[in-house]
């Protein structure tokens, strides 16, 4: 069944793409089938999941790599699925109005459906390698979604930025997961967490896995891709960058923390990164005039909060994390939708150009914005408040180190209140945030009801969950319990006059004060803004990579053939010699002179070779080469190889004839050119090669102990091969297969020569036609 759910996503995406011309707006309905199926399935299985049961499925894929498609849904996965599928359905409904039947809409709907499937895969995977598969699929689909408006260079760049950063983390994570699995002896997530390994390798593996989680959840210092990703259409942002994809990292931290929080650097690392992210993101959210950017940094901040809560790995904090996970999904998706509606209807989301959202039709939108932002700021009695109370409570009662964490979280929450206020005020009274700016967009018509409805649903949920915590107390309890057997949740609105309540009140007050003092704060921020932003670092890295690559390539790839040949010959000679002398190898000096006949032949060979090398005339050089060839033939006679001598003689003759045939068109003298490798370098390389050849030959020949196989050939040539000439029997019979190959070479050479000779004549094109039209200059 779980496989069917995943398949439904893929099938609906395929259906949308296949019927893109006919579907129109209906594409969004088809695309939503996957998430809808998940919701239906959740409803049907709610009881089992609440009882602590898990639904599992398994299919083999690659046994050799321990990669089986293990799927498992427990209560925590169910909580994530509520988020992924529930908000997913609403986003599809919203996008139907936002993107409508635009030409890109079908592509967007299909990709969004694929993305929802991938995200579902992340949540239901019980094998860490399967989780990685789904994880990377979310990266790729989000790449394509961010670049949906591909005619915009900014969108293309942002998409690449997001993909590369998350893929970087993904690769680190892959290494970490494999190491972890190898340490534990299993790649099943459940088994891994149940019996966690430890030790140095495990610690390293965990750090690598965390890098993956941090990049995906936009934690500092890997956060910079998320604000850039806001170029995507708002439904995409609402889904990927609020509810779903960025939660993948949080999800992974949540899964692993109960087992690994005490191992090595986990807890200090995760909590530090989370806190830095929460505070830094909150500070950045106070600055942008683009409402979507404001929400983006707010999201980064809240993700940091979530990472802290889950990363601590203690039951109380885990409970708070589960509560905040859901609350955040609700209010952030609603807020993105609001910004999208405003953008869609007014044509801008810049506070400095925003018109007053007057009129009856806008009242609903304003209400949604206020309720959701208030939930974000943890104003009672909303879902965000309930979650925040749990978080404060978890840390107040914790051990000493948690006080520091608590202080950080309070600071982050103060900032949250401030930017939430800023968001609401900017929407309702733009002038109060941006001052009296120049031209404002004209007041817009109210959005249609269907456009607003999804956001209303989300806001309503925010309110209901806040007013009646009992509604979701069970859900959170089961989810937290599934993560950590010791965790139990009992959500309530009113804990009595306790430290958390006081902290909440103080947070709200401080946040309001911070917002009230926005002008001095802004001035201070402008003065103390860090000189480097994440995007700049990324851009510099990419530029540096491109320049470094070009520089390296210019060095190793100068395009000079003699240089290539020289490097290859030198490498072969030197590497082999080094290996040769690494062990016993020298067999002793060979005889100086074998037969007397060798002396004149060897002399002829040497003289001919040297003379041919230094000859300045082509004709002379070729003739001298011929001399060497004939000397070889003589040598073959001396060595007892008459067939060889005959062949050598014939081939050499033919070669000289063919060479002269070509040469008659070339100038007789070689031209002097001072190009390429210098003469000295060439001489040195040649000397190295020559010496290497001699040394290697002596070493190889001197180490022969066995009888050569050719002895059997000589003995069998007559009785078995019916020939006296052993060499010929070898050629046509014993090793006839070689000869078959050899004549094939001749056939191919003949075809190639004819083709080249017949190739059409062209005026000497110095400036080559690089277009490579594929057009041939055939006969």
């Amino acid at each position, binding site marked *: 069944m779980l496989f069917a759910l995943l398949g439904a996503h893929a099938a609906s995406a395929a259906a949308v793409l296949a019927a893109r011309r006919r579907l129109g707006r209906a594409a969004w309905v088809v695309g939503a089938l996957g998430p809808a199926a998940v919701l239906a399935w959740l409803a049907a299985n709610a009881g089992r999941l609440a009882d602590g049961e898990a639904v599992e499925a398994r299919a083999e894929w690659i046994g050799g790599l321990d990669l089986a498609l293990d799927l498992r849904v427990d209560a925590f996965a169910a909580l994530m699925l509520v988020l992924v599928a529930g908000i997913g359905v609403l986003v599809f409904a919203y996008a139907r109005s936002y993107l409508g039947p635009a030409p890109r809409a079908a592509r967007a709907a299909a990709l969004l459906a694929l993305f929802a499937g991938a995200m579902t895969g992340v949540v239901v995977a019980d094998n860490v390698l399967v989780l990685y598969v789904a994880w990377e699929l979310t990266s790729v689909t989000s790449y394509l979604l961010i670049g949906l408006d591909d005619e915009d260079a900014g969108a293309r760049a942002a998409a690449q930025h997001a993909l590369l950063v998350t893929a970087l983390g993904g690769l680190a994570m892959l290494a970490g997961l494999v190491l972890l699995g190898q340490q534990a002896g299993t790649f099943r997530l459940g088994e891994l967490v149940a019996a966690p390994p430890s030790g140095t390798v495990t610690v390293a593996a965990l750090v690598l896995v965390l890098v993956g989680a941090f990049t995906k959840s936009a934690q500092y210092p890997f956060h910079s891709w998320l604000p850039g990703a806001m170029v995507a259409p708002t439904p995409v942002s609402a889904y990927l960058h609020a509810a779903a994809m960025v939660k993948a990292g949080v999800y992974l931290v949540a899964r692993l923390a109960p087992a690994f929080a005490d191992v090595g650097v986990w807890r200090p690392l995760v909590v530090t990164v989370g806190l830095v992210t929460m505070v830094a993101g909150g500070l950045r959210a106070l600055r942008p005039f683009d409402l979507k950017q404001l929400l983006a940094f707010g999201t980064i901040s809240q993700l940091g909060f979530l990472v802290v809560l889950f990363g601590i790995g203690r039951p109380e904090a885990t409970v708070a994390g589960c509560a905040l996970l859901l609350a955040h999904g609700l209010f952030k998706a609603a807020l993105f939708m609001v910004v999208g509606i405003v953008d869609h209807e007014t044509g801008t989301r810049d506070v400095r150009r925003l018109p007053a959202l007057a009129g009856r039709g806008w009242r609903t939108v304003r209400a949604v914005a206020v309720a959701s932002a208030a939930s974000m700021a943890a104003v009672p009695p909303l879902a965000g408040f309930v979650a925040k109370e749990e978080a404060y409570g978890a840390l107040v009662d914790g051990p000493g180190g948690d006080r520091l964490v608590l202080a950080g979280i309070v600071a982050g929450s103060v900032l949250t209140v401030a930017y939430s206020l800023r968001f609401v005020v900017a929407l309702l009274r733009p002038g109060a945030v941006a001052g009296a700016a120049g031209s404002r967009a004209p007041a817009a018509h109210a959005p249609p009801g269907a456009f607003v409805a999804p956001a209303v649903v989300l806001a309503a949920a925010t309110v209901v969950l806040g007013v009646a915590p009992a509604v979701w107390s069970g859900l959170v309890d089961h989810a937290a319990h599934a993560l950590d057997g010791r965790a139990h949740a009992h959500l309530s609105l009113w804990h009595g006059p306790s430290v958390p309540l006081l902290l909440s009140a103080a947070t709200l007050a401080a946040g309001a004060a911070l917002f009230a003092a926005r002008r001095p704060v802004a001035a201070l921020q402008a003065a103390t803004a860090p000189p480097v932003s994440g995007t700049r670092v990324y851009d510099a890295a990419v530029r540096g990579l491109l320049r470094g690559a070009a520089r390296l390539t210019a060095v190793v790839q100068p395009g000079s053939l*003699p240089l290539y*040949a020289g490097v290859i*010959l030198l490498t072969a000679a030197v590497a082999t010699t080094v290996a040769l002398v690494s062990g016993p190898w020298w067999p002793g000096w*060979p005889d100086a002179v074998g037969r007397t006949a060798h002396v004149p032949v060897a002399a002829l060979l040497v003289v001919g070779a040297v003379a041919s090398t230094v000859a300045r005339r082509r004709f002379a050089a070729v003739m001298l080469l011929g001399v060497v060839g004939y000397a070889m033939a003589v040598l073959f006679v001396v060595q007892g190889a008459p067939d060889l001598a005959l*062949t050598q003689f014939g081939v050499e003759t033919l070669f000289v004839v063919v060479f002269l045939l070509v040469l008659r068109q070339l100038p007789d003298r070689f031209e002097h050119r001072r190009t390429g490798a210098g003469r000295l370098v060439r001489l040195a390389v040649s000397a190295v090669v020559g010496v290497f050849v001699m040394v290697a030959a002596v070493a190889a020949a*001197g180490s022969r102990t066995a009888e050569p196989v*050719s002895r059997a050939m000589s003995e069998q*040539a007559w009785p078995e091969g019916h020939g*006296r000439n*052993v060499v010929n029997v070898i050629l046509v019979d014993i090793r006839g297969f070689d000869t078959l190959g050899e004549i094939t070479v001749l056939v191919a050479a003949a075809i190639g020569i004819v083709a080249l000779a017949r190739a059409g004549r062209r005026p000497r094109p110095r400036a080559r036609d690089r277009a490579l039209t594929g057009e041939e200059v055939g006969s």
Partner: protein
Amino acid sequence: MTGLLVVAAGVLCACGTYLVLGRQLSRVIIGFGLLGHGVNLLLVLSGGDGGDPAFAGPGTTAADVDRFADPLPQAFVLTAIVITFGVVAFLLALAHRSWRLTADDEVEDDIEDRRIAAAAREGDRAGGDA
């Protein structure tokens, strides 16, 4: 293995290498000719120091076989000679074509490589200025 012939093979290979590292295709081809001779010489030597031509018959005895020059490397060399001939003939045709296209048989540097090298230098200068 005869030292004298090993030295001859080494000299042939060295001379061949020197020519192969040049830029004019006709000299490169001559270089491959020399290299080929050098390596063929080594191949023949790999069968020992030679002997009687390997001709067998009904009356051939083990002692006769002992005196044979090793026939197998001869077959190798024969194959190698023929293959080298085919390839070198093709290379000549290529030189011929090159001559007709550019009035030269020189091996030029790769244009795209040089373009990228130039771009890299350009980038360095721009980077230095920034």
